């Protein structure tokens, strides 16, 4: 039984200032194990900054971020990766001179899981099968389509057996057919009981994938609840569409 008394990830009163600009203002939320949490909000609302704070790219100006009780705020991105947080990037990041298999394996050697040799190969092959690229191991990443590069990136993030997975607009830029495939893939992760935070603009993906949603605007949390609840919330609609439509 998972220990439900300690949240998988707990963000407490986190603030990030860039000079005079408050990008994230006093954010608090918790993520329980096996939960898929959506982080939504209009452009510039601080979602990506929040992801960067959790994954360690940025150090919070104040507040704590706890991974199963362990404070990880500001310890540095590589240490946070070894503690069990993996992420994908808004703009897909490939390692061009490495094969597809090596791109996936890159996530599974130095992070939370540390495999090597034969075990690593088998594991990376398994992940490639799981994301739908069973025979792509030896090809160059430059030969992959966009959705396939996204798959590789997802497999790389999964290669570290993360405790918490951050998907930063993983569905962005996909065409309608690819989008279906992409949503099905995340659905599969959800069914496996992964603990995931999704930043996304694709609302129907949020509706079908997330247990719970947090809506940000101007760096602050303005709503929290099930996707249905928050998307019906007057303040959320105002944040997205402006006053006249509310």
């Amino acid at each position, binding site marked *: 039984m998972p220990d439900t008394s300690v949240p998988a990830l707990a963000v407490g009163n986190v603030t990030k200032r860039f000079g005079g600009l408050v990008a994230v203002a006093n954010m608090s939320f918790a993520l329980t194990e096996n939960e898929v949490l959506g982080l939504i909000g209009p452009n510039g609302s601080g979602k990506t900054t929040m992801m960067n704070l959790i994954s360690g790219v940025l150090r919070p100006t104040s507040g704590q971020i706890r991974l199963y009780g362990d404070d990880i705020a500001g310890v540095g991105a*590589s240490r946070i990766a070894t503690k069990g947080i993996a992420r994908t990037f808004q703009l897909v990041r490939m390692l061009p001179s490495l094969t597809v*298999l090596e791109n996936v394996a890159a996530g599974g050697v130095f992070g939370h899981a540390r495999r090597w040799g*034969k075990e690593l190969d088998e594991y990376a092959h398994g992940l490639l099968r799981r994301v739908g690229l069973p025979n792509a191991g030896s090809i160059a990443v430059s030969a992959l389509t966009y959705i396939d590069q996204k798959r590789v990136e997802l497999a790389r993030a999964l290669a570290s057996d993360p405790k918490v997975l951050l998907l930063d607009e993983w569905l962005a830029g996909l065409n309608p057919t690819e989008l279906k495939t992409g949503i099905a893939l995340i659905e599969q992760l959800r069914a496996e009981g992964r603990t995931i935070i999704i930043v996304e603009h694709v609302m129907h993906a949020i509706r079908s994938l997330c247990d719970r949603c947090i809506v940000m605007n101007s760096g602050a949390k303005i709503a929290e609840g099930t996707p249905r609840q928050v998307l019906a919330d007057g303040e959320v609609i105002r944040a997205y569409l402006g006053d006249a439509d509310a």
Partner: protein
Amino acid sequence: MTDGTAPAVRGSITLSAREKRNLAIAALVLVATSIVPLVSSGYLLSITTSIVFYTALATSWMLFSGPTNYISLATAAFFGIGMYVVAWGIELMPYPVLIVLAALAGAALAVVVGLATLRISGVYFVIFSLGLAELVRQIMTWLQHVLGTLSGLYVLTDRTDEMYFWQLLALTGLIFLVGWWIGRSRLGFALRIIGNDEVVAVHSGINTARAKVVLFVISSTFAAITGALAAPRWSYVEPTVAFSPFLSFQVVIMALLGGVHRLWGPLLGVIPFTLLWELISAKFPAQTTLLLGASFLLIVYFIPHGVAGLIEDTLRQSPIASIRSALARWKSRNA
């Protein structure tokens, strides 16, 4: 993959057939080279010694700069340190002890420099590394001025050219072995990831600063040992010679000419360059710097991936296709 099995990440415990073959070839080349002094003591030995000398420096340079894309112009700093450790200690200690001390001195300097500079990005690192070599040279000049009367030091031993050659060759063999081991280790894999995308490396859990420092230290230590081996042969050591920026540039050019993405790449640059260099310095002694600069331009312009890259491209494609793609590259560059 050429052997038809499932693709793999480099670096399993057991050796693949291909790796065994490569090791055998390397051992054979090493043995064949080692008999050169027995066959010839004149011109052939001298030119082979030059080739082995530059192979040691260019390959150790490539160990760090190849995967990380950090162009270091500090080879002379470490080479010179190694040389000076021997020059200062030769009257006091046995030579083998001095080689170890030289390695330690080079490693210590590399740790300090690495920690201070490897967080800075490419271009600044290039400038810093060049400045470092000059700084060390100035310090040495000043120290010699303070400590003694001579502008240089004599290193007089009874070591023969043959011994020098065999030592250099053994060192080169060791550098290849270490390079090969790094290539199949986690460290090597980490560096390839760093060279591709440092952001991905960091988020994959790689301590990028530590990985770079470790490799910089390994690379620099070998440069210092090369200096320690060369000191008796050069017999008179002074700062302008030991810390010559020319040496740093030569090493970079040779490595780039050969190619820095394969362990054997620099070797393919060292051989033609050394031969060419012999010719240039014999025929045009006054224009060596000019020709060095010109060859640098030509290499960067026409063979950015080096001879090794050219060979691999050719092997991968049919001859006609490779000529066509080379032409296309050339055209697109001129478009």
